[in-house]
């Protein structure tokens, strides 16, 4: 137990670092999920459109009003730089001008050059909005050709455009009111947060415990090498448990309320991932010995895994090749389960269990690898004599 | 030609409540090997750091080479060599590069510097290790590198702050001889230590510090003269009666005796032939005795008598 106790004494002396990182990442966790939770799945979402009405006729105003019911009209200044920024950063999906003379052309059945759009990305949103504009013009033409007045034709075309197609989301199994999208978003980012916060806070302590002179001294003592490693793991695990509780507590406070149904699975999921992170921290601290290098490695692990496993970008948007690589990283399975739980992916108990089991396997593997590495790195002499004997 | 090299006047340094230096004054003349002796925490290093203008102090003045010392007194700094308690070298540079780097902060001419660096390497005996990185050096060699970095520019005043801590006897002797050689070549030396043997061995003048105060100053002999004790006689003798012990205590110049059943200790102050007189008492009473020691006072006795405690803690 000496090692275990010493671990906490060292931790106490280094609590400043730990508190800074846990604090910062707690803040990040809340801000990320807050920022992301507003964005529901983009594809079926209302499109954000900016319109600049240069025709400014009663007809064009009427058209804009109708569009306002179909899309979310975002009012921005008609400034090229602003439009560029808004489009580039996808704050709006589409920006277009109703050209001067629009109403006359529409009345005359002309279709060319009615609108001018500002082009940035070739996105789905753009296709959908443009399709809608074309459909509207087609409808007006069809109806005027059938003998309606322009005014009547516009009314009818508007009605047609505004009819929403009925899309049912089929639920297999129970619905996800126990695990709200906000809550799910918070949980989605936890792997990034755990890796960054726990590695940044825990590894410096472990690195002190692993320092050569201390290690040599410990190796000379009667503590068994495996017991030493296990005590380190135990110390790390207790610390991580505390960190985990902080983050879970923050999540409950912000979004969740009481855990019900699937939320418990999500909780188990995050707990397993915290364990994986503990093992990872012990592993990393066994291989490196510099604070600065730790920073860089944490970034590579945290950000790298986040991008490859669908934490920052949903897995469905990543290509098959990326997901194929992601499969070899534990965060992939975490995210997969989380997506299942919140309904972004079909849920089945078997698949959920598989994810949890794979994560557990990662935790065990990491612990074994760490024990092995520590044996090779730290007790070379011991191993050699053992081999001779 | 006894020019004053260092003059510290009425120096006071506080760390909050703790008074690290309490109206400390000191004068060091050119050509001296000046020892600052005192137990751990007596203020030796603080004195050095104030002297070097690294540490801000609350009161007092410091002059070096007759000019007030300040952080920007580069003309003064040019002539000072410093060897700190902690090894201060770049792990990323080799032995040669380290010495060259620090020497280069003083000597800008390249050809001249090369000679200086080579001299320094020879001086500390690191000729075989010039391409080594500090991490590969043993403790003693590392200390020697530390010294070489401090003295390569041939300074007129060399300040050594416990340079022999954790050094093997061989390296230690080499370092001490080196310091004396530097002194013979004309450098004034300030040497701090809590090893009284070292200080006795090489220092021409000594100040003893305790709790931030200077409690005594002078040459070795002057210091020893300051105390009552001039000779301590220890005789291994068994079964001594109180009567005979009283006779010994009554001898002239004897001011105290101790007896623990095995050893008789007689403290004398002044006078000659004290040993013969004490042995005479034993002979008169036909008492046989074993080994006999007569010890002249050490700096430890000086310190002990002035402060009432030993210079070094028991465990050291």
């Amino acid at each position, binding site marked *: 137990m000496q090692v275990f106790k010493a671990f906490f004494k060292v931790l106490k002396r280094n609590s400043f670092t730990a508190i800074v990182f846990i604090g910062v990442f707690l803040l990040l966790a809340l801000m990320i999920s807050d920022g992301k939770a507003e964005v529901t799945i983009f594809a079926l979402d209302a499109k954000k459109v900016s319109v600049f009405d240069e025709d400014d006729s009663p007809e064009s105003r009427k058209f804009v009003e109708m569009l306002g019911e179909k899309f979310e009209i975002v009012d921005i200044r008609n400034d090229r*730089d602003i439009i560029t920024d808004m489009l580039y950063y996808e704050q709006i999906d589409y920006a277009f001008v109703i050209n001067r003379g629009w109403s006359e052309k529409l009345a005359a059945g002309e279709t*060319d*050059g009615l609108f001018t759009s500002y082009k940035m990305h070739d996105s789905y949103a753009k296709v959908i909005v443009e399709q809608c504009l074309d459909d509207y013009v087609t409808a007006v033409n069809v109806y005027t050709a059938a003998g309606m007045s322009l005014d009547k034709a516009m009314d009818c075309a508007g009605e047609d*455009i505004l009819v929403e197609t009925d899309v049912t989301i089929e639920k297999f199994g129970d619905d996800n009111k126990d695990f709200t999208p906000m809550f799910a978003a918070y949980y989605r980012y936890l792997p990034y947060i755990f890796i960054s916060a726990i590695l940044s806070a825990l590894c410096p302590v472990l690195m002190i415990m692993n320092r050569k002179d201390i290690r040599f001294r410990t190796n000379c003592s009667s503590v068994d090498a495996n017991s030493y490693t296990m005590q380190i793991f135990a110390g790390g695990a207790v610390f991580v448990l505390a960190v985990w509780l902080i983050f879970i507590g923050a999540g409950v406070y912000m979004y969740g309320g009481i855990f019900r149904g699937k939320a418990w699975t999500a909780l188990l999921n995050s707990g397993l991932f915290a364990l994986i992170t503990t093992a990872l921290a012990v592993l990393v601290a066994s291989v490196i010995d510099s604070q600065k290098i730790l920073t860089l490695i944490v970034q590579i692990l945290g950000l790298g895994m*986040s991008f490859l496993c669908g934490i920052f970008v949903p897995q469905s948007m990543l290509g098959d090749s990326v997901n194929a690589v992601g499969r070899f990283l534990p965060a992939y399975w975490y995210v997969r389960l989380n997506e299942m739980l919140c309904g972004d992916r079909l849920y089945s108990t078997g698949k959920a269990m598989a994810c949890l089991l794979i994560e557990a396997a990662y935790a065990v593997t990491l612990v074994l690898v760490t024990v092995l590495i520590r044996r090779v790195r730290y007790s070379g002499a011991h191993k050699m004599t053992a081999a001779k004997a | 030609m006894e020019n004053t090299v260092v003059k510290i006047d009425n120096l006071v340094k506080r760390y909050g409540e703790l008074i690290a230096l309490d109206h400390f004054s000191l004068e060091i003349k050119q050509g001296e090997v000046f020892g600052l002796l005192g137990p751990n925490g007596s203020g030796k290093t603080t004195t050095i750091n104030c002297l070097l203008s690294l540490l801000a102090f609350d009161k007092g003045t410091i002059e070096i080479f007759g000019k007030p010392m300040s952080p920007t007194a580069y003309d003064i700094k040019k002539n000072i060599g410093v060897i700190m308690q902690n090894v*201060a070298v770049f792990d990323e540079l080799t032995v040669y590069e380290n010495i060259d780097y620090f020497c280069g*902060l*003083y000597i800008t001419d390249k050809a001249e510097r090369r000679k200086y660096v080579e001299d320094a390497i020879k001086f500390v005996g690191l000729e075989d290790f010039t391409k080594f990185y500090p991490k590969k050096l043993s403790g003693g060699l590392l200390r020697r590198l530390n010294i070489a970095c401090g003295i390569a520019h041939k300074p007129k005043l060399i300040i050594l702050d416990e340079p022999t801590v954790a050094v093997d006897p061989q390296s230690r002797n080499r370092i001490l001889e080196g310091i004396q050689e530097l002194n013979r070549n004309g450098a004034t030396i300030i040497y701090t230590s809590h090893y009284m043997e070292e200080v006795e061995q090489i220092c021409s003048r000594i100040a003893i510090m305790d709790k931030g105060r200077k409690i005594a100053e002078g040459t070795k002999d002057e210091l020893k003269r300051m105390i009552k004790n001039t000779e301590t006689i220890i005789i291994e003798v068994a079964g001594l009666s109180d009567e005979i012990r009283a006779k010994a205590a009554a001898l002239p110049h004897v001011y105290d005796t101790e007896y623990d059943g095995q050893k008789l200790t007689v403290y004398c102050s002044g006078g000659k032939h004290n040993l013969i007189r004490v042995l005479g008492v034993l002979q008169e009473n036909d008492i046989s005795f074993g080994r006999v020691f007569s010890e002249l006072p050490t700096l430890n006795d000086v310190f002990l008598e002035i402060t009432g405690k030993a210079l070094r803690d028991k465990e050291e």
Partner: protein
Amino acid sequence: MFLHNLFYDLKTSLRTKDLIIWLMVFPLALGAFFKFAFDSIYEETTKFSTVDVAVVDEAGDKAFRAVADGMAASDEPLLNVTYADREEALELLKKEEVKGIIFTGDELTLSVGYSDIEQAVLKSFVEEYNLRIRMIERAAAQDPAAAMKAAALISEKVSAVNEEPLTDGNPDYMVQYFYNLLAMVAMFGIMNGLHITEINQANISALGARKSCSPSPKLVSICSALTAAYIIQTVCMVLSVTYLRFILRVDFGSSLPLIYLTSALGGTVGVSMGFLIGSISFLSQKAKESLTVAFSLLLCFFSGLMVENMKMNIEQHIPWFNRINPAAVISDSFYCLNIYSDYSRYSEKVLTMAAFTVFFALLGFVFTRRKKYASL
């Protein structure tokens, strides 16, 4: 004296091999991950692929079947249709063998398991189909004679929209992750900056104490250390840009020399910031290290490294923060170079960075001017 110091400062920095290596590995590895992940995003989101769909056609809608069959005959069919009854279709959906179920009837309706791009494609197909049906019905109701004419008009391809490109640069949205990655590499110049005070301040290291005792003025030794850190950081930045541009083939737009210049300048901002933080004397070196890392991560977060719309969120609520967040300024200047054809906004960003560098460095000098310490 300056050159002597600079020579050795560079030498020591270069010999701290593992830090340099990791400082390089970090953008290389993350850059490769980004590239790998984002290239496929482009494929996933913009390249059409056939969507598997089940159709429950209980009424036997001939018109729909005609459309569906016509589509299946084309080279790159939009839909791959499986006809099934309701139960079978639901089973297929559950097994994710189809992305959605289309029910025929008066109007088409759609069922999906969850919402995603393929589902959006299905939705837009269904809407389009329904709309056309409605148009024909309405036109026929108005004037039965005109129904044929209306049908002809409907099938005519209308393009009412003319496009006006906003930029000659690379509009790829994902490039901004690389901007932010470069901004992060620049921010990690903070570590190089911290080192400057570490080796020069007597109260931080024994080395600093020794240097302080030498006749080499502090201004000189700090200037040389700062210069060395700038050089190292610039090399890092240049290598990162070169790697991203020429090995990963990230398209930064046309003005590559200015991209190099910007990244170098960004690096100096990071180094100066580290120098400034290092010169704050009341913090321990360890505290400084963890604070700076946490701080730079936060800055990168606010400039959008983790969540891409963060910068615009901030632009809407606290726009001044984007002007002074060094990470945002750095990534913004890459963006301006790429997207805008005139340089006014870019030069504004460059001036900001230059001002930051000078301001941080000057402030750092003021703080390190202190020559004596209360305790060592």
